[in-house]
């Protein structure tokens, strides 16, 4: 295998056109991405000038939404809060089909319940036990964690030491412990209510997807309220409220002693598409660079058929089995290295360009950033292998290039340019080799967020490595088929 690899590498590096093609792939991938980044300008003209609002960052480092109505007391040490939620009602403005009325109603992810939170700062750590509009009783903490907990109306949150225990009960006597999280030090404890906007997606008249997010609020009615270990008076805060917001979104609390009624609007969850520009925007050039990668991958094998050189190759390796794998390793290694250079340049420089143009960037961990960069390079490499394998199967450059583009690029463009309905787009991104583009998605879609999680907005139906695995499967299957046919066919 080593001599074969060396031989194929010598072949590759000694044809100027293939080296040039690989460089073009790098330049296109990095260049187009950077051009896009340089052209992304965000403007937030307001009374204070062009100042964009800060996006809260959760304890996990993600951009989050943290806006809710909070009726609370101080919690210096151990303590507990117990309530029964006896009513959830709300208002939805201008829902479908007519979009012309303000109607009573509760959106599925409206939340009312009890919460222990570090402080009133947006993005600070918390644990909450809640009743939702349509997703039952749940325990959530630190924005990203979400546990279903049946449909019980009794909620309890207890802090012992720095351990917070969430529990639910159907009757207030028999309790079921649902969760255990940690929150040390002084905190606040109380009741909360919040309701995210009502999301619908529609097909635009000129193609494209039109998303709409309509203001809602929720009112929770709490009874049998028991608080232990709390200090100070009950206080109401409309956490994260913006000045000048519509009156329907303004939070309020009414306290009759045995009954408390809390109204709020907003969300406590990962920020979704409101969390700022995603880092993969700087890698939009990968789709263009991919064309050069595909051409090089195909030509690396079809050129031999065109020139009759395949005879020399096979006479030198009459066992034949290793020839295409060796070619695949060479073309994959070259493409991966090139892709890595392109992505490692495009992401940091592109992000800087975007920040300079007032864009908020949705924060991700270093690991995620590395995954997006390395994954993009790997996706290019695997696509090169697919192109090579199809080239070997077809033995014709044009047919192989077109087929690879149809398999990888076309579904991606159809799905993300939102020219087809979202469900069809999602199936394309599950079943075709374009699934691998999921490796570029830096912000996951959370089920507890009613968001526009559709391909057109950068959300892929498969997880990053899952999508990548689909592309790998295609490449592996095509390569295996090509190896078998190469062995069977006369050269």
């Amino acid at each position: 295998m080593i001599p074969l690899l060396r031989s194929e590498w010598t072949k590759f590096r000694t044809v100027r056109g293939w080296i040039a093609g690989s460089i073009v792939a790098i330049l296109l991938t990095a260049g187009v991405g950077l051009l896009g980044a340089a052209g992304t300008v965000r403007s937030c003209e307001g009374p204070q000038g062009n100042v964009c609002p800060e996006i809260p960052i959760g304890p996990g480092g993600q951009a989050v939404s943290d806006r809710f109505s909070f009726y609370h007391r101080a919690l210096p040490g151990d303590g507990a809060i117990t309530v029964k939620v006896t009513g959830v009602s709300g208002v939805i403005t201008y829902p479908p089909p007519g979009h012309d009325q303000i109607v009573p109603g509760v959106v599925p992810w409206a939340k009312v319940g009890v919460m222990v939170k570090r402080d009133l700062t947006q993005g600070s750590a918390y644990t909450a036990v809640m009743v939702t509009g349509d997703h039952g009783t749940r325990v959530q903490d630190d924005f990203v964690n979400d546990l279903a907990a049946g449909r019980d109306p009794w909620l309890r949150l207890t802090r012992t030491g720095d351990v917070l225990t969430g529990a639910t009960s159907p009757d207030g006597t028999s309790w079921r412990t649902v969760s255990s999280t940690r929150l040390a030090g002084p905190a606040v404890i109380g009741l909360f209510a919040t309701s995210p906007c009502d999301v619908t997606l529609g097909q635009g008249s000129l193609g494209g997807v039109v998303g709409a997010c309509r203001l809602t609020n929720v009112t929770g009615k709490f009874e049998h309220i028991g608080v232990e270990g709390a200090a100070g008076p009950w206080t109401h805060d409309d956490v994260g409220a913006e000045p000048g917001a519509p009156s329907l979104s303004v939070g309020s609390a009414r306290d009759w002693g045995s009954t408390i009624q809390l109204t709020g609007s907003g969300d406590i969850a990962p920020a979704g598409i409101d969390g700022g520009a995603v880092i993969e925007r700087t890698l939009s050039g990968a789709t263009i660079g991919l064309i050069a990668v595909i051409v090089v991958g195909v030509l690396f094998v079809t050129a031999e058929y065109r020139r009759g050189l395949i005879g020399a190759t096979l006479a030198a390796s009459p066992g034949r089995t290793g020839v295409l794998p060796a070619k695949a390793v060479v073309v994959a290694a070259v493409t991966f290295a090139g892709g890595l250079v392109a992505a490692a340049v495009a992401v940091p420089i592109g992000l800087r360009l975007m920040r300079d143009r007032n864009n908020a960037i949705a924060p991700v961990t270093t690991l995620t950033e590395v995954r997006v960069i390395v994954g993009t390079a790997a996706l290019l490499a695997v696509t090169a292998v697919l192109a090579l394998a199809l080239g070997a199967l077809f033995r014709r450059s044009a047919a192989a290039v077109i087929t690879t583009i149809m398999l990888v690029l076309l579904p991606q463009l159809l799905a993300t340019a939102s020219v087809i309905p979202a469900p069809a787009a999602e199936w394309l991104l599950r079943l075709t080799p374009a699934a691998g583009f999921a490796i570029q998605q830096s912000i996951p879609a959370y089920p507890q967020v009613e968001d526009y999680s559709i391909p057109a907005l950068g959300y892929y139906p498969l997880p990053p490595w899952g999508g990548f695995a689909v592309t790998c499967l295609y490449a592996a299957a095509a390569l295996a088929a090509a190896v078998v046919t190469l062995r069977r066919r006369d050269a």
Partner: protein
Amino acid sequence: MDVTVEVNGLRKRFGATRALDDMTFTVRPGVVTGFVGPNGAGKSTTMRIVVGLDRPDAGSALVGGVAYRTLKRPLTHVGALLDAAALQPGRTARNHLLWLAHSQGIGARRVDEVIGLVGLEPAARRRAGGYSLGMRQRLGIAAALLGDPPVLLFDEPFNGLDPEGIGWIRGLLRSLAAGGRAVLVSSHLMGELQDVAGHLIVAGRGRVVADRDVAGLIAAASDGRVTLRTTAREDAMEALARAGATVTVTGSDTLTVSGLPGAATVAALTAAGVPFAEVGAHRATLEEAYMELTRESVEFR
């Protein structure tokens, strides 16, 4: 050395065309074996099967007793020039040889050696796309010699070569055979193999028509014939015919006489008073020997 190539009962069809139909012969070491026959006789297909490029429908081709496909570093066993035009035009000759060498675990030094052997040094670092057919033949031969193999197959190596190149290849083929290698050289022109081939395999319609050693072949074709040079052609022909000979005119003043030994020819001419300049034993050319061999099978002329 001392490796033979055994081709045994090869059959191969390409669609409706029968390319090989029980092709059987052996190529022995130490001699250049000419593989002749018209285009379409199956010469190239046979060679492609020997180096494992095509699979026969039936029969086998063994190199030193084993199938080529099982060889580990095949170019050190068999060197083949099958298609001199098979080159990546953007790649230099040296790099072309280099990737071939690397595939066999052979180093760059041997590459420069074979470039020297075929006299391509001045052009070795130029792109092969600009090569003349003759230079491509030399590059193809260099590739065949790369692994210093005991068996060499050359398919139409004289194509596109100038007389100087043809002379060079003849010398090379002779020296390769003299070194104990088995050398198979195909050609559709008999004359090219003159003074080179020690053995001849004549193919037609996918099978062997004749498999003879050249010395015997020429002797048979020359057998009992006498070449006569005379200025009195008409008189000579008349006198010899009377003596019972068959006479063929081969030039303005030369005749070939058969059916009458040299001494009897001289006696007949002298008796008839016909002047002559020279009488000698006739030596047939390879071309003539080939004609002799294939006289009956008009189908492949």
